[in-house]
C-alpha cells in the first residue's frame, strides 16, 4: 500500500475497528476501500472507521464512505465513523450531509457505545 494512506485494523468482539491514516483522494480511494474490506473480514458485524488521523479527504473519499456503507447495509452490517471536532475532514462530511446517512461520532468511545445500543436490533 502506498504511503499516501494506510490502514490499521483491530477486532473487539464483533466490532472491527479500522484506523485510516494519511490522505484520501481519487488516486487511492479505491485502494483504501479494498484494504478496509480485506482487514474487516467476514465475521465482524459492525465496522467502525476512525478518520482521526486523516489529513485530507475530498468528495472521492466521501464517495468511498457512501459506497462502503451501501455495501455493508446490503450485508446487514453497520458502519460508524469517528471524526473529531476541528478535523479538516469534518467540514466536507458535514457539507455533503454524510452524517445523515452514516452515524458519525466525534469520539471513538461514543462510536463504540453507540454500536452496543444498536446491536439488539440486528440480532433480535
Amino acid at each position: 500500500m502506498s504511503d499516501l494512506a494506510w490502514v490499521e485494523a483491530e477486532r473487539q468482539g464483533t466490532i472491527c475497528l479500522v484506523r485510516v491514516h494519511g490522505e484520501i483522494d481519487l488516486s487511492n480511494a479505491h485502494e483504501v476501500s479494498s484494504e478496509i474490506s480485506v482487514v474487516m473480514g467476514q465475521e465482524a458485524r459492525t465496522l467502525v472507521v476512525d478518520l482521526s488521523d486523516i489529513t485530507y479527504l475530498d468528495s472521492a473519499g466521501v464517495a468511498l464512505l457512501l459506497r462502503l456503507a451501501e455495501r455493508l447495509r446490503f450485508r446487514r452490517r453497520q458502519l460508524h465513523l469517528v471524526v473529531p471536532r476541528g478535523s479538516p475532514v469534518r467540514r466536507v462530511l458535514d457539507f455533503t450531509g454524510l452524517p445523515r446517512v452514516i452515524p458519525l461520532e466525534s469520539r471513538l468511545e461514543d462510536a463504540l457505545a453507540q454500536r452496543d445500543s444498536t446491536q439488539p436490533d440486528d440480532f433480535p
Partner: protein
Amino acid sequence: MATREETPKAPPGGLGTAATAHPWSYAAGVLLVAVVYYTAAKLGLRLALVGRNITPFWPPTGIAVVAFLVVGRSVWPGVALAAFMVNLPISTGVLPAAATAAGNTLAPLVAATLLAKVGFRREIDRQRDATAIVFVGALLSMSISASVGTGVLVASGALPADELPGSWAVWWAGDAMGVLVVTPFVLSLVLPWRRPGRPRWKHLEAAVLFALTATVSVVAIGADPHLMFLVIPLLGWAAWRFQQRGAAPAALLVVVVASWAAAKGVGPFRAGTMLENMLILQAFNATVAFCSFFFAAVVTERMHAHQALERAAAGLEARVRQRTSQLSATNLQLRKEIAEREESERRLRQREGQLAEAQQVAHIGSWEWVIPQRRVSWSDEMYRIHGHVPQGFPVTFETAVDQVNTEDATRIRSNAEASLQRADDHDLPNIEYRITRPDGAERVLLGKAKLYVGPNREPLRMVGTVQDVTEGRKAEREHRIAETLQRGLLPDRLPEVPGMALAARYVPAGADMAVGGDWYDVVELPSGHIGLAIGDVAGHGPRAASTMGQLRMALRAYALEEPSPAEVVSRLDRLVSRLLMPEIVTLVYLVLDLDSGTVQFANAGHPPPLVVGLGGQASLLEDGLGSPLGCDDPGLPAQASFRLDPGSTLLLYTDGLVEQRGASIDEGLERLATVAAECGQDLEAFCERLLCSMVEDDTADDVALLVIRPVPLTGRSLLRVPAEPRVLAPLRQTLRRWLRESDADPQIANDVLLACGEVCTNVIQHAYGAKEGPLEISLDLRDGTAEVTIRDQGRWRPSSGIHGGHGLPLIQELMESVELTGGPDGTVVRMRRRVSSGSGS
C-alpha cells in the same frame, strides 16, 4: 600567261563586219590602211629590179596581211584603193593598174583567210605559226599576186613574154618577202607588251644588238659578198634573246639592207645578172626570214613549253605541297586520335582499376545477369565478399542464389521473378540478406538491382551491386545498445518540481569518453516527496553501465513502494548481493519533503552530500553512512535527516569531482567546500563553475553532479501536470507550501486545498474521457487574497457535475468566488479566497 591563248581570227561576219559596227571608224581604218599601204609601196618601189614595178621586196603585201589579220578583212577597199593608186602611174593604163591592184588585194586576202583557217597566231610563237606564214601566207598566197601582176604586164605589152618566168619569180619573191619580213615585224609592234618590268639591261642589249646588226649588214653586204652570212648569228641572237620582237625587226633590217644592195648593185650584186642577183637576194632573204622565224618560234615555243613545264611543275609542286599538307594533317589527326584512344584506354583501365579498388574498399561488389544468354558475371569483389578467389568459378543465377541462406534465397527468387514479370526498366526493391561463406562465416549483404528490358519489353539484363554491411550492422547494433544504456543511465530530463530548482551534469572520463558507471536520478514519489539519488559503479564500459542501469531501475521501483530511504538502500543492498554484481557500488539516496524542508537519507559508502546555507556556509552530511552495496553488511544502513531551508543548496556528486591526482580526498573535499560556498543564484552556472574548477580536462574518472535548491513558492506560480490521479498528492504538497508561505490561515488553507482538490479531481475524471491531457494550475496572491485558476483543454461532460451534485456547491461554500467558463477549447475555473490579513508577498 593564260591570256596568250587567245587566237586572233577574222571577225565572224566576213568582209563587211567592221563596216556594220562603226561606219566612221571603219572609214578611218580603210583610209589608214590605204595611206600606210601606199607609203610602204612607194618605199618598196625604190627597190624595183624589173622595170619600175617589179621589186624584190614588196612591203605593202606584208602591211595588207597585217591589216587583214589585225583590223579585219573588211578593210580590203583601203588595200585595193592604195594598190590601184600605186600601180596607176607605173602601169600602161587604168585597166592593167586595176587588175594588178586586184591581184595585190586578193593575195593578202587569201593569205589572211588561209592563215585564219589554219589557226595562225599573231604572236608567231609556235613552229606551226612560222610554217603557216612562210608556206601559206607568203609562198602560196603570193603566187596569186605574182601571177596576176606579171600576167597583166605581159598582156599589156609592158613585159616581153620570155621574161615572164623571171619577172614572176621576182614578183612572187618580192611579195613573199614583204609578207615574211614586214608582217612579223608589224605584228610584233602591235603585240601587246604584256610583260612589264623588262630589265634595263635588256633594252640596252636590244639597242646594241640592232646597232650591231645594222652595222654588220651594211658593212658585210656592202663590202664582201662572202661576208653576208655574218648577219646570221646576229639574227640568232635576236631570236634567242628577244624572240619574234627581236627577230622580226632584225630580219627586216637585214632584208632591207640586202634588197637595197641588190637594187643598187653593190656588194655581192655587183657582177651578177639581174636574175642571178635576184636569186641570191631571194635566197639570202629567205634564209634570213626562215632563220629568224623558225628560230624565234622554236625559242618561243621552247620558252612556252618551259613555262608550261614550270607552271605544271609549280602546279604539281603546289599540289604535292597541298597533298603533303593534307597528308600531314591527316597524319596529325590520326596520331591525335591514336593518342586520344590510348589516353581513353588508359583512363578506362585506370577507372576500372579505381572501380575495383573502390569496390574493395567499400566492400561493394557488382554483377550483371544477361538474361537471354543465362550468363552471370561477378566483379572480383563479389567473389571476395562471398569468400571466393576472384573469378574462381563461373557464376549462374542458381549458383549465386545457392550461396544465400535458405530463407533469404526464397525472398531473392521471388523478387527476381516478380521483376521479370514486369515489362519495363525498373529498380528492384533493396534487399538485405545473409550468406554463409565456405569457411562458415555469416555475412550480411545489402543488394540493389535494376532490370533493363529490350525493345519488345523482354527482359534483357539485370545489373546490381552487393554491399557487405556486416560490420556496419554490428556497429549499428552496438551503438544502439550503448545509446539505450546511456538513456537507461541518466534521466532524459529532470522533472519540473514546483518550488525546487534542479541542475545536473554528467562528464564522461576524458580518456575514452566511454559510458561510465556514475549516475543520478530524480524521482517524484507518490507522497509528493522528491527522491534524489546519486551513485557510482566502479569501472567503465557497457558492463558497468548495464549494472548501473539495473540499479537505477531497481531504485525507482523500490522508491515508489517504500517511503524510507534506509529501507530502499537496504533492498538495493540485498539485490546487489543476490545478483552477485562484482563491482563496488556506492550511492546516497535522499527523500526531500519540500513542504517541510525535511530531508531523510541513507548513504551506502558514497562521498557525503554537501549543503551550502543561505550565508554560504558549506557543510558535509557525514551522518547516515553505511558500507557500499553488496558487502554483506548485516542490518539496515543508518538513516539520518536534516532540514533544507528554502534558498539552501544541496550538492550531490561522485568521487570524480573530488579525487584529483596527487591530492587526498580530504583536500578535494575542502576545495569543494570553498568553491561551493560561492554557489550563486543560477544553478546551471554553479554546475559549470564547479566542473571548471574541480575537474581536469583529461579526468580519468567520470563525474556526475546533481544540485537541488528549494525556492519560495510565494506570489505567482504556474503548475502544469498531466491530468492523472497520481498528480493530486504532489499538487497538494505544492499548494500547502504555497499557502503556508503566503501566510494563509491554516483553516482557510484547508478550504482552498479542498476546493482545488475538488476541481482537479473533476478535470481528471471528466475533461478528457479516456484520453490524456494537461492540467494547469496557476496560483496568484494579491493583497492577502489567493486566486487559483485551473484550466484544461477538454470538455466537461454534461452529466458531470461535481461529485454527486454537491461538488460545485461545496466549492462555492469553500471559496468566496467561483467562476466557471466552459468552451470548445477547454474549461477554466477561477476561484478566490482571502487567506490572510496581511498584504501577502
